[in-house]
């Protein structure tokens, strides 16, 4: 397998599949478009499996590396590679794409080919982000991935979709501009290299590190999103179609966090230490403040969107504790959040498809008419509340324990999510699912069909499998995380 360009396949198989699907054209061919999309998505997932099975646990170096000149004049290369930090995200993303295609199977009935093609192309672009080792290549993927998501929200979204799409686009574009400036600075000061790995090794003075760190912080904080640049997320989720929400929560939010590990920490280690307090403070605000905000949401999608922000607070907190337990806990939390929030948005989508409302007040007693759904929804609600044996527990547990080591009161603040997180999730569950049948809309609900059951099972395998046996997920991270922390501990100031 060593000769196979696996990462190129991971990027280009879904994109090509997307173009083929696009070629089926109008909705007369919708069944064909759906079938081709599913084949493309599954093929996209299959080509990523060897990344895991062929992964060498014992090296922190980049694996499956591909290096070809792209724009030789500026020393820009088509340089791909994954390590223990990024590899799992390529697989997660390809997995999520399959669920998204299935999730929109019957629901999307206009511009089917374009919808599915959008997701397939986006999937390839996102894989590109996680495997790019060249600054320009990364930036191109990073920006290009915005376009399909922007279109998905803007075309298949809810009534206020244009506002949401604009807000989403402008927020992230704002961050991207600073990111671009930082990349250009690095290109110049490295003497003409766009290689991210070169940047990792290059000495940089404290002032420059601080500016670079702040530029990265703004760029990535918007994506994560961190408080206070998070307000685009609830709007985007509310307007996005179910598939858009799933990808947004499961993958797009991970890009910012991934950026911290690939850029901020290794390129500006001294500034990272210097400004860790700032990031930790913002993370704790995200966990507590957003937790309370989530509690009073009336719209289920907004509630889960806010809960995503709180969960991502654990990710940024874990990174800036600078311990293996913290960083790996944060990575675990990112992957877990992919399964759990994806499943939560899918659950809400299942109800929305039937009753056309996302408001908690419009439901009540759903368990009476949708018992199978209620069981799955309970599983994912519990995972969202961080119950042991679900993936939601593992990351929170690791980050809280790492935080106690770092500073007891930081851990104290973070652990409050045990109470608040359970409160907003289960209170919503109680009002929506339990109780007597609240109105005739609920009385007319039909339980999940085979396709929805399949999607739930896929998510459940992820959430439970990772909760019961997280070792296969963390063992691939060890070498890379240890190496990263060793690197970050060394000063770059000369």
């Amino acid at each position, binding site marked *: 397998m060593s000769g196979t360009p696996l990462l190129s396949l991971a990027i280009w198989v879904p994109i090509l599949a997307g173009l083929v699907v696009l070629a089926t054209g109008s909705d007369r061919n919708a069944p064909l478009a759906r079938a081709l999309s599913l084949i493309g998505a599954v093929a996209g997932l299959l080509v990523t499996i060897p990344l895991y099975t062929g992964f060498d646990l014992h090296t922190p170096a980049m694996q499956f590396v591909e290096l070809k000149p792209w724009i030789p004049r500026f020393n820009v290369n088509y340089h791909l590679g994954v390590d223990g930090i990024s590899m799992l995200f390529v697989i997660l993303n390809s997995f999520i794409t399959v669920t998204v295609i299935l999730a929109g199977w019957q629901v999307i009935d206009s511009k089917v080919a374009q919808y599915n093609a959008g997701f397939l192309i986006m999937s390839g672009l996102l894989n590109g982000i996680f495997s790019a080792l060249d600054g320009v290549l990364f930036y191109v993927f990073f920006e290009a991935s915005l376009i399909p998501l922007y279109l998905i929200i803007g075309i298949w979204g809810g009534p206020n979709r244009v506002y949401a799409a604009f807000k989403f686009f402008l927020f992230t574009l704002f961050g991207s501009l600073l990111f671009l400036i930082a990349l250009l600075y690095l290109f110049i000061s490295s003497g003409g290299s766009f290689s991210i790995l070169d940047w990792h090794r290059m000495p940089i003075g404290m002032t420059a590190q601080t500016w670079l760190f702040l530029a990265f912080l703004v760029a990535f904080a918007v994506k994560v999103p961190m408080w206070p640049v998070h307000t685009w997320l609830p709007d985007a989720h509310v307007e996005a179609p179910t598939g858009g929400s799933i990808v947004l929560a499961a993958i797009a939010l991970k890009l910012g966090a991934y950026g911290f590990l690939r850029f901020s920490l290794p390129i500006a280690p001294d500034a990272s230490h210097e400004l860790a307090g700032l990031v930790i403070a913002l993370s704790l605000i995200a966990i507590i403040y957003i937790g309370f905000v989530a509690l009073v949401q009336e719209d289920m999608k907004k509630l889960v969107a806010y809960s995503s922000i709180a969960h991502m607070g654990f990710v940024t907190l874990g990174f800036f504790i600078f311990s293996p*337990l913290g960083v790996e806990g944060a990575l675990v939390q990112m992957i877990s959040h992919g399964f759990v929030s994806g499943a939560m948005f899918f659950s809400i989508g299942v109800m929305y498809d039937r009753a056309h409302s996302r408001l908690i007040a419009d439901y009540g007693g759903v368990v009476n008419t949708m018992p199978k759904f209620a069981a799955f929804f309970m599983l994912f609600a519990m995972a969202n509340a961080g119950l042991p*044996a679900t993936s939601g527990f593992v990351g929170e547990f690791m980050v809280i324990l790492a935080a106690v080591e770092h500073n007891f009161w930081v851990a104290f603040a973070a*652990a409050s999510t*045990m109470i608040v997180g*359970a409160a907003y999730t289960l209170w919503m569950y109680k009002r929506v699912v339990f109780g007597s*049948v609240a109105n005739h809309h609920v009385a007319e609900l039909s339980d999940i069909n085979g396709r929805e059951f399949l999607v739930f099972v896929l998510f459940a395998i992820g959430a439970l499998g990772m909760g019961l046996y*997280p*070792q296969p997920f*963390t063992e691939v991270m060890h070498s890379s995380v240890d190496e990263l922390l060793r690197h970050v501990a060394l000063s770059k100031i000369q």
Partner: protein
Amino acid sequence: MEMQKLYLLVPLAPLVGAIIAGLFCRVIPRWVAHTVTIAGVAISCFASFLIFRDVMAGNTYNGPVYQWLTSGNYRFEVGFLIDQLTVTMMLVVTFVSLMVHIYTIGYMQDDPGYNRFFSYISLFTFSMLMLVMSNNFMQLFFGWEAVGLVSYLLIGFWYTRPTAIFANLKAFLVNRVGDFGFILGIGLVLAHFGTLDYAAVFAKAPELAGTTLQLFGKGEGVALMTATCILLFVGAMGKSAQVPLHVWLPDSMEGPTPISALIHAATMVTAGIFMVARMSPLFELSDTALSFVIVIGAVTALFMGFLGIIQNDIKRVVAYSTLSQLGYMTVALGASAYSVAIFHLMTHAFFKALLFLAAGSVIIGMHHDQDIRNMGGLRRYMPITWITSLVGSLALIGTPFFAGFYSKDSIIEAVAMSHIPGAGFAYFAVMAGVFVTAFYSFRMYFLVFHGEERFGRAAAPHGHADHSSPAKESGHAGSSDGHDEDHGHHADDAHDAHHHGLAPGEKPHETPWVVTLPLVLLAIPSVIIGYVAIEPMLFGDYFKASIFVDATAHPVMKELAHHFHGAFAMAAHALTTAVFWLAALGVALSWFFYLKRPDIPAAIKERAGWLYTLLDNKYYFDKFNEAFFAGGARLLGRGLWKGGDAGLIDGIIVNGSAHFVGWLATMVRLFQTGHIYHYAFTMIIGVFVLMTLWVTRA
């Protein structure tokens, strides 16, 4: 068979039953569901017995099952620690669970959720076994939360009842408050010991006894052991319902009675007691933590007992007595009498499960009327339930020779000999508690089984119309959900019968054998287990190394052993002690009040109205929590949302910048006049400025 496989079988057999009954609950017939789950628990119980014999032969075990996670230098494993303490818990859990499984066949026979119920209680058994068999804090926490989850599912089993789904949310959240402390305690263990493995932690504990943490700025700091133990105990306060985290337990009575017996009396609520006993090598190193434990336990033991006096719902009386007895166990822990706490945990598991199941039997006999004011004289109609209830009540109040006597009396003796700060108050509380326990237990017993027959009256108040029931609170909470107006019930829901009670002229009836058999089987240990077990468990070498007591600092058990001259002598001697007479006085007074002169309690209620109101409102804990914590959190959330997110961030910063850009664009537009001469002029000025700059720089 290899012992390790047997260990695995104990939790997995109920799990398999739970999975079969749960996943296929809609397709399998009822007999399949109860057969597979009962078989699973029976196998588990039998295997536990084999393991018990093996452990008694001296074969303990501590080893991993699989590696759950590694990170940095830390290893987290799933593993078993099989020793005397574990195996005691395993026997109690599996035996009571088996009884409850059998009982459920009768209790739930009309319920549409029959299969689901069996799945849940087997899942609970699995979770509880994982908790007690764990050899590390991670798995302990897993079991801890898993039993909490099943408790949540079971309290809300009748999910259309507003009171039930309020109670289960409340139970989960209050437990989460405890878990919040618990996980921080675990965090301190990991941070300072570098491992979560019990054996390694306990081995390292003495050398870290002097470590202090600078938690509150400069100064002396807090001892690591004190902080760790108190945080761990906060977890126990949630699970074992100690004041002020006790508020969920009375409401948990909304669940079906079999789980009140299994989860909310015999096993899950004792997890906190078990945990502290398991952690005895840590708690022994902090007198401050032990003082904290003993005071909390004493408050719970006495003040929760008072509340039992005024309850009219049969299950709630038993629930408050459970709270009070959990307080007794906690007091024993604080007095460093861990073995006594576990001993009381065991006797209590039998007689309290018995009392709950008997209460359930009464409820069936009364056609789901739970109000003891509507009962009376049931002994004529339900003889087995009557006798077994009497046995349970006698055991509970500590009648000599009954199981509860040995354990409760040992607790009182241990507290008397403890010198830990707070022990004096605790001694008063447990002594007064004896009287209170006897009084409310026999109040219930007399009102239910003796006296005038008050059932079958048309205008009789029903259990849930009773004003001390939680209907009021849940309606209150419901109003914040906007769902309280809707009380529509499904006609086919069996629990609708809950509100019915006996029709005029109808008589209560004894329950079927699946119900009475467990009563009888639980009544036997409720009588004899104390007599049989006290000598080996408390004064013999039963627990060996599984419980650690620093005998020089806390010599309570040694002194207790000094005064012990055999189980018979202990009971015989009891007749001359104050404890016995306090209990007797309680029984006599309740007989006088509730059978002889029912006008007296009514008059007291009239006179001491403020006291009654205080007790009726359960010291206002619920009202305070509802207003301050629940209301405060919602208010804070709304403030942050509307003020912070919508007002400040979106309103001023985001839209403000948009407006600013808009304003800027308007300004800039003024320059876009479309007249060539404007542009040319501007260009000339620009060139002029640039040239000036260039010249001056040079």
